[in-house]
């Protein structure tokens, strides 16, 4: 064969092997200009004794953090004729001079409207400009599942910022649930509540910090068939084991029982947030809830107002439950500099409060 042809083939083979299938996935951005100023309303009323809060905001023009809407008149009414106005930026008195707790948004603080299973609730909002919005009635279910939880220590792989796959030790929380023989629509969220202590002169400040380690990883279950099943060993979340486990902490599984409409709303959120990311995914769309403009049905309002029957099961854990070589005092001499702000004042940690959860051991 001609030498030139041989050389040509060799070069081409080499190039081909080097370059072929150099497929790649890279991030791209869109200059989305059509999203902005959409009203967002989120709120719920539950069967518990929590303060029920509604937030009102608008999407920002360039995809930033939503802009809070203030000065609105917000009411909740139930199906037996009770109606109560919510208080904007309510200051919760925890009986401590250190932590007057301001709740942003609009909070139901009175006792005219109570969250009761089996009852329906409607939210009504009138903005400063007079525009009125209402939610379609949402009924709080009468049934809950019976949950028990346990945890295991396991490893999960994570991609580091440097692109290296690492094995991370995590507390994996599992759920066993006994379902009722009635139609039920359920959602489970995992949260970790841990303690951080700031030494004080007169007394230490003890903060209870609530975190949602898997905010997009909630679990949904469609029990519309009304079959009394036992769900077993369903993982609902996991938490990286670190210094947050130094003091006693609680691994909580929060069960929410919804109406079918609310469940479908969450299904849609799941669809757009739990996107596994392949080329064959369904194109996204914004989940639309049950809030509407009374005078303009064409306006799409984001968010949802729901009536939720809620139950929490939890596991109290302490440092001894975990490998000692990964859990240290976060405010020790070695770690203090790194955690200086939160160690100096644990209330500076987001979602921290001095209010002890009801389930916390004495």
């Amino acid at each position, binding site marked *: *064969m*001609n030498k030139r*042809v041989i050389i*040509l*083939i060799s070069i*081409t*083979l080499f*190039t*081909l092997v080097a*370059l*072929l*299938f*150099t*497929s*790649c996935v*890279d*991030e*791209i*951005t*869109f200059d*989305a200009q*059509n*999203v*902005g100023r*959409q009203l967002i309303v*989120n709120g719920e009323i539950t069967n518990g004794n929590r303060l029920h809060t509604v937030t009102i*905001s608008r*999407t*920002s023009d360039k*995809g930033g953090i*939503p802009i809070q809407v203030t000065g609105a008149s917000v009411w909740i009414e139930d199906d037996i004729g009770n109606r109560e106005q919510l208080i904007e930026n309510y200051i919760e008195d925890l009986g401590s001079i250190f932590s007057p707790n301001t709740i942003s948004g609009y909070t139901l603080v009175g006792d005219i409207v109570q969250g009761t299973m089996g009852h329906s609730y409607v939210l009504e909002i009138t903005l400063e400009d007079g525009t009125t919005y209402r939610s379609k009635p949402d009924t709080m279910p009468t049934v809950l599942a019976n949950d028990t939880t346990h945890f295991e220590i396991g490893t999960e792989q*994570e*991609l580091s910022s440097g692109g290296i796959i690492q094995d991370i030790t995590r507390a994996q929380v599992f759920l066993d649930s006994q379902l009722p023989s009635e139609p039920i629509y359920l959602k489970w*969220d995992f949260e970790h509540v841990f303690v951080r202590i700031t030494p004080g002169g007169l007394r230490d400040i003890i903060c209870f910090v609530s975190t*949602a380690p898997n*905010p*997009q990883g909630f679990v949904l279950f469609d029990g519309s068939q009304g079959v009394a099943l036992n769900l077993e060993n369903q993982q609902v979340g996991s938490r990286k084991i670190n210094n947050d486990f130094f003091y006693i902490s609680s691994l909580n599984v929060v069960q929410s029982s919804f109406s079918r409409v609310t469940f479908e709303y969450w*299904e*849609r*959120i799941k669809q*757009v*947030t*739990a*996107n*596994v*990311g*392949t*080329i*064959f*995914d*369904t*194109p*996204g*769309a*914004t*989940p639309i809830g049950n809030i509407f403009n009374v005078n303009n*049905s*064409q306006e*799409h309002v984001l968010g*949802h107002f729901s009536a939720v029957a809620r139950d929490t099961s939890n596991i109290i854990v302490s440092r001894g439950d975990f490998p000692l070589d990964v859990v240290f005092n976060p405010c020790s001499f070695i770690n203090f500099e790194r955690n200086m702000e939160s160690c100096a004042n644990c209330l500076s940690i987001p979602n921290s409060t001095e209010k002890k959860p009801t389930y916390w051991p004495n």
Partner: protein
Amino acid sequence: MNKIQSTKSNLTRISLEESKLLKRSVLCVLLILVFQQTFTQNPTNELKGTITSATNGKPISDVNIYTEDKKRGTITDSKGHFKLELAKGIYTIIIDFSGYKTEKLKVDMSQNRTLNVSLSESNVNLDEVVITGESDKNVRGLAIGLKTIKVEEIKTLPTFLGQTDIVKTLLLLPGVSSIGEGASGFNVRGGKVGQNLVLFNGAQLFNSSHVLGLFSSFNADAIESFDLYKGHIPARFGGRLSAVLDIKEKEGDFNTIKFDASLGLLTTKVLMQGPIINDKTSFLVSGRVTYSDWILTLVNNPDIKNSSVAFHDINANITHKFNENNKFSMSYYRSNDRFQFSDAFGFNYETNILSAKWKTNFNSKLSLDVNGSYGNYDATSFDPEGFDAFNLDTGIDYINAKGMLSYKYNDNYTLRVGGEWSDFDITPEQFQQDDSNGNAIIENIDKEQAREFSIFLENDIQVFPWLSFSLGGRYTMFQNYGPYEVFNYQEGLPIVEENATGSTVFGSGETIQEYSGFEPRASALFQVGKHNSVKLSYNRTRQYIHSVTNSASPTPADLWQLSNRYFKPQVADNYSLGYFHNFNNNRIEASLEGFYKDINNQVEYRDFAQLFLNNQLETELAVGKGKAYGIEFLLNKKSGDWTGWLSYAYTRSFVTVNNPFPEETINNGIEFPSNFDQPHKFNIVIKKELGKKSAFSASLTYITGRPITAIGSSFNVGPTVVPVFTERNGERIPDFIRLDASFTVAENIFKGRIVKKPNKRFKDNLSISFYNLLSRKNAFSVFYQRSNDELLPVAKRLSVIGSIIPSLTYNVSF
């Protein structure tokens, strides 16, 4: 060797040198003759004959035949016949056609002459036309928006991994695009992929792609030619709205056994053809297979290393000539794919088509064409590994029969009349998954059946030499029939699952729903002088089978939904207008075409639609209106050292789904761009002969990025971050730009070296192609993905071809 025969004796073959010497004198003679003809009405004589291929003896259509002074000319018809009126005198007649050596013949036209010529193939297929079948058809042909391409003419275009590709060639034409690099199928004038009728030997094809869309599923070696109808669609074609791609398979050689092979690093093709009974019965068998997995294992990316790509296709046909007037052929086509991306997802899909064709010429004016075909398309999407591994089977079976009677009264009037019957059976969806105990869970969703019957009529009429019409129509009747269970919904409420009031069960063969309608098809040609024409057309088309997808990219497992109680047939009104002008004796042609298309009952997916394993698709889909419009410009140089074309198309495509209930409304009822709304498309294709045996070609494509629904903002519900998307298709992915180049470096590389005593037919060459010379990361698709530490998914562009892709292919025939 050329075989030149003349029934009269005054033909003399002359060399090119001689022709130059004669040129002036002949021109003078011609000028005198033309003058005489013009002013003295000199009588003319007729030059007629047949042009055939010296390679296989078959007639060649669309061959340019013209006098050297380029004042008189014609082209051959589908049987290779031509007829030319010439005033008395001596002429140098030039016969040229892409891929064949040009012939120059001196003819004394003192009386009527018959000229039969066999053209031999040129060494490299570059010396002539790029797009043929146009010639002066560009100006004189009745059909607006018709492109006829012979495979021989595209073999020197740049290829992807050495594969001459029909669909990739179509994508170089104005008005034809795809939504991404490697995406399945093709979109014509803003229409969906599923709105194109793809016919292979007269049989429908439901997926025309290998490896998702990186290759088309047609082995070019087994294809003779293909026609793309994107404007006027003759009444003999029906069942799709946007376009018809009619692919004609080669017949086997009736005299000689021949082999062709093409060896590439990733694919191999072989073709064998020849006589079973000399001059009576021929066969052709070809196959193509890829063995690309070895190269995936060399790639460092673990996902690609664990991926798998495999496909093959087979073409086989037998043709028997009972006599000069009766020909029967039977063909089988099979295409099979397996594609798996790491342990994430995969597809198996397969097409099988068996078709038969009978052509009878009752006399020189009356002929009958009868086709029959059976085909099926089966696709399996699967998740190969893990606790959620599954298989989901979908598919469609069909039978089709068609007959057409053609009567050519004279050159000015042709009548075609016929009927077509099809039966579609969507195969049940079957889902298989193992439960935690390893027991198989199988779920079946029944699908529908339907039959479609059509009658059609075409009249091609030349009223005056400058005015022609094609007037016709098609009347279709459609019946959706049982067994099937149809859900009923409360009247006055939106069609959603909660409003179902029960169902009606229809027995086997029982009519569920019927539709019928007339489809007028008309076009007109106004010829202005010899080199200009204006054409216009109006077509109504109906489509009873809807392609349904809700993924960002078409998938091999996309569903087909028959028209039923809830989905009326899609109906399109297509309007086209074009101006056509040829220069330099039809060697350069130009066209400017505009179109407008209105579509009713177009099916779109609702937000969050769940299409698979759903026996109530009417609750997931919504019916709306579509429209598309645009202009297309083409300048095509068909011969000379440099050939090629330049084209630009401006195409818009929109959808509106505005129904009384918000649940059945999309995008708030506001018009939105369709997935195929890609306004600007620009192409340049050039081909250059380098000496006698080598060639260079290059192509450049620019297309506006397709629309996509993007995340524009977000909000929180508790700790959960919820994305806010733009209005449907409110953003666009980056524009598509690709430059390719190809070299045919030599011929007869091994002849006389490795093959010491090759036979006379032995020919080989080496082709080197560079695909994506700009190394641009053109998107296959864009999708959203959320990594572990991100709350909001981010847009990711997948470029399946992220760099230059060179390829080396050795072709041999003997």
